[in-house]
């Protein structure tokens, strides 16, 4: 944020802060070891607030859980902001000195009274007020979020609405106070760091506006770089639909099963002229590909390579196993591909590639392999070899005078989820992960987890009773895009009208048939979290042979 995309705090700070807010994050199940740090903080006396439509495992640890309606995050954030401002609890010193755009922001949240907030979010006004006051009054406070914030059509504004709260209270840029997206995958952060973002070069250097940076890369690489941003994932799919994108090279992803509105996604992939898939396992996407390049598991079959975690720590990976058969390291494949396309890059080691990055990305400059080894990873920015790395970001906002650009408030208008509830589709389906599984299950479905119970439609007991369905009974779930069958599981931690599914077992039950591919124009993320569905009881003969027979634990 404010220029560099990464969480501002370290895990360790969660242990020493006074207030933790998890917003749209079930870290207990999705980031279990980060949650250990949260719990250390809680046991030391920190208060925990969890904001999530479901009363998740994380929420059950909270001093207060705010069970907002799906897709009302901005409404809640704006209400909190107005309450903080009206209660005179805004950090005026920080706002005056280190931010811009406050007046406009204040005006934009003015309609969000507690009562209005309650009407939109469902959360009692008194509870919203409690959180607003507790957050604003805390000496230290950390706000974390995950996909509950970003898998919405308003993803970018959702994030900005939370950042606004940090700016309003000054809870950023100090030890124990920060704003943190928890990354869903082991190198989402590293991908961003390395420029796998449409408008960035490695080190978050802007490809369109930072001419000097672009020139440095051009000089180093000996090529001219196009001075315009590329497509993000959703734009690629749109381009495929338009017939504009004809060849796709996918690696380490399974878009055939992971995209929202999977029917549409499959059509797009099938319509390609040429699909290359590079993976360690035979995914559904691989099965569709014209060419499959067998890769190695970078976390255990390749010597070298780095990943960056949610506290911006760059860490080394190492080889423990010999890869099977003809599998080749990703970087070997890329280099060979380049060679056969007429570009001989030689065969640089991963360390050499890394050192080139260090020469071009100032925030990585101090991170030699040797130091990464010695220090157990280093948190960026680390501009020089005598720099210890950065525990937290944006301390500059507290220096006198503020260094660099001041942090802007953003006006974040609330819009309701695209997929509206009505009499035909009265139940809000939201999706997420479970502890023992990971994404489309390509890796995790291969180990025998005693916790695994397959895909289920989780319903509040009252909804199940109204539908006349029993736990384990297979029902039909339909959205405006398609329908699937799934067995019912009862979950008291939902509320009537709210249902939950994962997307871990797409071979058996493809939940993304239901989800909507409406995407956030700013970030390109799809609205996985808010689908309007209807649930129907099945007659015996309508039932497909479901891959998952019951809601009970078992293999």
């Amino acid at each position, binding site marked *: 944020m404010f220029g560099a995309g990464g969480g501002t705090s370290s895990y360790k700070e969660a242990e020493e802060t006074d207030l933790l807010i998890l917003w749209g994050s079930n870290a207990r199940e999705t980031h279990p070891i980060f949650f250990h740090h949260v719990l250390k903080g809680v046991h030391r006396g920190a208060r925990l607030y969890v904001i999530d439509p479901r009363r998740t495992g994380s929420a059950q640890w909270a001093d207060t859980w705010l069970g907002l309606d799906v897709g009302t995050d901005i409404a809640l954030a704006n209400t909190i902001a107005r309450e903080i401002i009206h209660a005179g609890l805004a950090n005026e010193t920080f706002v005056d000195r280190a931010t811009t755009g406050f007046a406009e922001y204040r005006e934009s949240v003015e309609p969000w009274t507690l009562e209005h907030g309650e009407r939109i979010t469902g959360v009692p006004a008194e509870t919203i007020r409690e959180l607003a006051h507790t957050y604003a009054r805390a000496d230290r406070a950390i706000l974390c979020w995950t996909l509950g914030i970003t898998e919405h059509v308003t993803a970018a504004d959702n994030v900005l609405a939370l950042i606004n709260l940090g700016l309003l209270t000054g809870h950023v840029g100090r030890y124990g106070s920060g704003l943190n997206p928890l990354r869903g995958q082991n190198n989402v952060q590293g991908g961003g760091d390395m420029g796998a973002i449409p408008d960035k070069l490695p080190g978050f250097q802007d490809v369109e506006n930072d001419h000097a940076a672009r020139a440095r890369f051009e000089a180093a690489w000996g090529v001219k770089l196009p001075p315009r941003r590329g497509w993000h994932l959703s734009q690629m799919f749109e381009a495929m639909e338009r017939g504009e994108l004809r060849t796709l090279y996918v690696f380490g992803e399974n878009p055939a099963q992971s995209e929202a509105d999977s029917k549409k996604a499959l059509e797009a992939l099938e319509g390609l002229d040429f699909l290359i898939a590079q993976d360690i396992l035979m995914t559904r996407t691989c099965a569709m590909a014209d060419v499959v390049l067998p890769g190695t598991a970078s976390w*255990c079959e390749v010597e070298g390579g780095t990943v960056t975690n949610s506290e911006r720590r760059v860490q080394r990976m190492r080889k423990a196993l010999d890869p099977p058969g003809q599998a080749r390291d990703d970087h070997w494949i890329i280099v060979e591909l380049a060679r056969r396309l007429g570009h001989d890059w030689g065969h640089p080691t991963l360390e050499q590639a890394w050192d080139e990055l260090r020469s071009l990305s100032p925030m990585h400059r101090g991170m030699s392999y040797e130091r990464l080894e010695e220090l157990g990873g280093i948190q960026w920015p680390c501009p020089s070899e005598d720099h*210890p790395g950065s525990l937290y970001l944006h301390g500059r906002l507290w220096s006198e005078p503020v260094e660099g650009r001041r942090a802007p408030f953003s006006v974040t208008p609330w819009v309701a989820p695209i997929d509206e509830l009505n009499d035909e589709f009265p139940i809000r389906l939201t999706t997420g992960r479970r502890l*023992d599984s990971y994404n489309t299950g390509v890796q995790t479905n291969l180990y025998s987890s005693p916790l695994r119970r397959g895909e289920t439609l989780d319903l509040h007991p009252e909804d199940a009773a109204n539908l006349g369905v029993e736990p384990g009974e297979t029902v039909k779930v339909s959205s405006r895009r398609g329908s699937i069958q799934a067995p019912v599981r009862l979950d008291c931690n939902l509320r009537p009208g709210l249902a939950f599914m994962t997307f871990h077992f797409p071979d058996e039950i493809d939940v993304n048939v239901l989800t909507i591919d409406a995407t956030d124009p700013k970030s390109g993320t799809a609205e996985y979290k808010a689908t309007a569905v209807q649930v129907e009881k099945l007659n015996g003969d309508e039932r497909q042979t479901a891959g998952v027979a019951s809601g009970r634990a078992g293999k």
Partner: protein
Amino acid sequence: MTELPMAPVKPPARLISVTIDGQQVEVPEGSTILDACNQLGIDTPTLCYGDTLAPANACRICVVELEGARTLIPACARKVEPDMVIHTDSERVRHSRKMVIEFLASSVDLSITPVAQDYLRRYDGRPERYGPPAPADPERDHKRTGHHEPPDGQTAATVHSPAKLDNDLYVRDYSKCILCYKCVDACGEQYQNTFAITVAGRGFDARISTEYANPLPESACVYCGNCIAVCPTGALMFRSEHDLRDAAAWDESRQTQTDTICPYCGVGCNLTLHVQDNQIVKVTSPDDHDITRGNLCIKGRFGFQHVNPQPRAPL
């Protein structure tokens, strides 16, 4: 210039001077006697002590003699105080250490606890003098608290009971349990906070248990394996290790240990992969890395099957 973004600096701890076995040593305030012994290079036996856990101070094999104290004191848990005079190898210390290791070796299966054999040799322990070990008791999980059948003394009571194989990920063989509390602490408030296991019962009948001794799949267990990681005696074990041992194929001399990063979520946990014959047979995490402090979740601990050759379909 902005200050370096570091944690607030705490004032350095005061140094405390103590005398151990005639040698004076200065250690920071808050250190334990064990820390001071380690600084002097005095090898202190420990069993229930674990680097990442608060001292349970249950096994009492680390006891030392403090001048002026009525009883011996645990080196692992007792903090240094100025001018303590401590003896770590007196007759009293040697005797209690001998008895502790004898008590354990006569009642618990320590066959895969290498230090136990060292300690028995070091302190001349003779566990056989309590008589032949009593056989395993299948009812050990259901003892009535505060009541026992009078013994005849012809066999030495043991904690032996049938091993629990109730899931595919790990095995609980409480015949090997010395009741060090480490698994309970790791599962409980100190790390995992799942509280799937507890110490149940009392006295010699105390045992590690789920509620009503239910099988693990019916308990709150989330299979993080953080209990296995801290178990000092092999009572808790990876199923993969258990099966290899059963087949007499477990061979640590042929294993490599490699540190890498977990492939799943974005926390960035450090994994140590234990590999034998190009197969991952066990996953641990370094105790001294401050992301995990030795802990993992089910995915990091057990989610490696997809790279083990057997189930991995060749592309």
